[in-house]
């Protein structure tokens, strides 16, 4: 197929691109090329993360890769006619992706390859720097690798922001017949899709990161725990694992170094709480995903009671670049105690939604208004939920908050897994508070009464507020309930659900207090 005269056309197979017609575009490109008798080679890639431009198609031209988007199947004939094979102008022409402000402003370390390479090509992966990190880790040895990860300042990207190197050291120092590396890919937070993009767009990066983790702590087995809501990602990851095994990149003697590491994919079954690391381990063991009390830490007694590294997918996928370019290189990005880069996910009602990897330190306002371009509906931004369903709602008056773990914590807000969900002025914050409670009730593992019962009560109390009954008394009751949940819950599901609720009450009191008649009047301009 691939010959010198054939033009390569890159079309994403990322599920978000498929959801807006990428497969239809690929079929149209193939058909039109055949009809015109021109040779093209279609390469399916991950997504670059400019989702408002998906399906974004890139054509390899003498000028470099030139992007067009959002392309629909019906546009394809016109694109050929306009001369897109040589990068010609067309209303859908985006230009060189790297020159697009959304990408030019980023620092892509974890996402260096995503959207560029064929996700299932080991050759592509290696040509783009893959497996250099593992080679350096093999040379340096386990102890030095743990030290490098500590020095890089990398903090867990799954939610709590715990220093990854310290966790690894605990597991490395533990003595056991078997240790495990577990990748938490149970990306359940609304507004997040970075784990998914790596699974679909650069799976070997995760495989390499987990292999390095295994070498660093002395673990020979690993599991990736993904979610059933991600069937496409799971299919790509499964294929990548097969390819890696066949290529000797997993197994008994990796790269001829004597290193042993076996890796399997497991898929959850629609339970948000299984993203909590101990519930995840229970689920991996084939049980109900009920949260375990800590201590013992999973690092000491994790999967099947053995020392286990549980890390978010992004934490693990960032290891190869740290080992390749050096701990100091990574640590030089960022601010304060938030080192390196964060793959921020801009979602919801935002004009430029997508993946924005950048050094910590931009303000929330810069991210939402400048990078994101404000709302997709072109109405004013009213609230941003940061850090998933357990994260606070922030009003525009807090847009000066720097994107940094400590600065967010000082405002009772969460970096979490890097999601930002934007809402316009038609949002009803009392409704969102009710949703937070309802979600907690739905997803509670059932172990703690404040979480299980408190959230159900909480939803009922919001219903009374929504109906305009005893509003002041019910708001006070809701705040009490939140405090009980905060302090009486074992894990962050019950413990953090109060944050979206309380932040909604604090920053948007008008949505709660003025419920004297059923049906709050919407903002004047709302349709």
């Amino acid at each position, binding site marked *: 197929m691939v010959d010198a005269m054939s033009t390569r056309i890159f079309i994403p197979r990322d599920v978000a691109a498929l959801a807006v017609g990428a497969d239809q575009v690929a079929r149209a490109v193939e058909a039109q090329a055949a009809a015109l008798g021109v040779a093209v080679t279609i390469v399916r890639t991950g997504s670059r993360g400019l989702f408002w431009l998906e399906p974004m198609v890139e054509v390899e031209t003498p000028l470099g890769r030139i992007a067009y988007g959002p392309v629909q199947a019906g546009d394809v004939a016109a694109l050929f006619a306009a001369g897109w094979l040589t990068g010609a102008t067309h209303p859908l022409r985006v230009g060189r992706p790297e020159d697009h402000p959304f990408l030019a402003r980023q620092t892509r370390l974890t996402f260096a390859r995503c959207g560029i390479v064929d996700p299932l090509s080991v050759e592509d992966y290696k040509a783009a720097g893959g497996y250099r990190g593992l080679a350096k880790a093999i040379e340096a040895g386990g102890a030095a690798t743990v030290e490098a990860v500590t020095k890089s300042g990398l903090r867990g990207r799954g939610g709590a922001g715990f220093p990854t190197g310290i966790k690894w050291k605990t597991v490395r120092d533990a003595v056991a017949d078997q240790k495990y590396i577990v990748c938490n890919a149970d990306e359940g937070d*609304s507004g997040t899709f970075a784990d998914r993009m790596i699974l679909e767009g650069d799976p070997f990066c995760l495989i390499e990161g987990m292999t390095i983790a295994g070498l660093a702590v002395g673990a020979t087995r690993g599991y990736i725990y993904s979610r059933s809501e991600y069937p496409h990602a799971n299919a790509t990851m499964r294929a990548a694992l097969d390819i890696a095994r066949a290529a000797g990149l997993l197994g008994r003697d990796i790269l001829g170094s004597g290193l042993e590491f076996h890796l399997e994919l497991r898929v959850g079954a*629609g339970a948000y709480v299984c993203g909590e690391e101990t519930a995840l381990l229970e689920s991996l063991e084939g049980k109900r995903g009920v949260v375990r009390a800590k201590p013992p830490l999973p690092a000491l007694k994790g999967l099947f009671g053995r020392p286990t590294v549980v890390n978010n997918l992004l934490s693990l996928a960032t290891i190869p670049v740290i080992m390749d370019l050096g701990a100091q290189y990574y640590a030089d990005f960022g601010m304060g105690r938030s080192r390196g880069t964060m793959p921020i996910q801009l979602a919801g009602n935002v004009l430029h939604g997508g993946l924005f990897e950048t050094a910590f330190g931009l303000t929330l306002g810069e991210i939402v208004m400048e990078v994101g371009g404000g709302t997709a509906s072109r109405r004013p931004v009213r609230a941003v939920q940061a850090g998933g369903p357990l994260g606070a709602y922030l009003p525009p008056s807090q847009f000066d908050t720097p994107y940094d773990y400590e600065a967010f914590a000082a405002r009772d807000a969460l970096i979490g897994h890097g999601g930002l969900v934007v809402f316009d002025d038609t949002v009803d914050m009392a409704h*969102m508070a009710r949703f937070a409670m309802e979600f907690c009730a739905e997803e509670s593992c059932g172990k703690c009464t404040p979480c299980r019962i408190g959230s159900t009560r909480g939803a009922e109390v919001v219903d009374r507020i929504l109906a305009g009954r005893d509003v002041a008394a019910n708001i006070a009751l809701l705040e009490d309930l939140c405090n009980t949940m905060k302090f009486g819950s074992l894990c962050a599901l019950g413990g953090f659900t109060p944050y979206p609720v309380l932040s909604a009450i604090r920053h948007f009191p008008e949505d709660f207090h003025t419920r004297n008649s059923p049906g709050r009047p919407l903002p004047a301009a709302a349709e």
Partner: protein
Amino acid sequence: MPILHALQETFGHVPQDAIPLLAEALNLSRADVHGIVSFYHDFKEAPGGRHVVKLCRAEACQSMGGHALAEGLLHRLGLDWGGTTGDGQVTIEPVYCLGLCACAPAALIDGRPLGRLNRERLDAAVNEARNDWSTP
């Protein structure tokens, strides 16, 4: 879990008869297996419709009108969440985030992803599914 996923995929639910067999094979009590099946939202104890429409109810989809979109579809089909149309064709299930949050509102219909949905696109997709995707 992999066994339960396989059963769910093959039969559209985890058949009641399978529980004692599983319990025996895995050396667990029936109550244990039942507990596992009932804990996870994916595992159904009764079969659903021929086509499963998973509509995202989570925050990012709500910010783009997902709530009204979902309520509208349920209303037009005369269903509640989890309900199946009288002809056994379509089940509407809630899902909390499909990772399509930058292309909201989103749905997964018989495993096919759909983003940037509006009423017309959603209705068209549900009808296509009913017709077994004969007009893709």
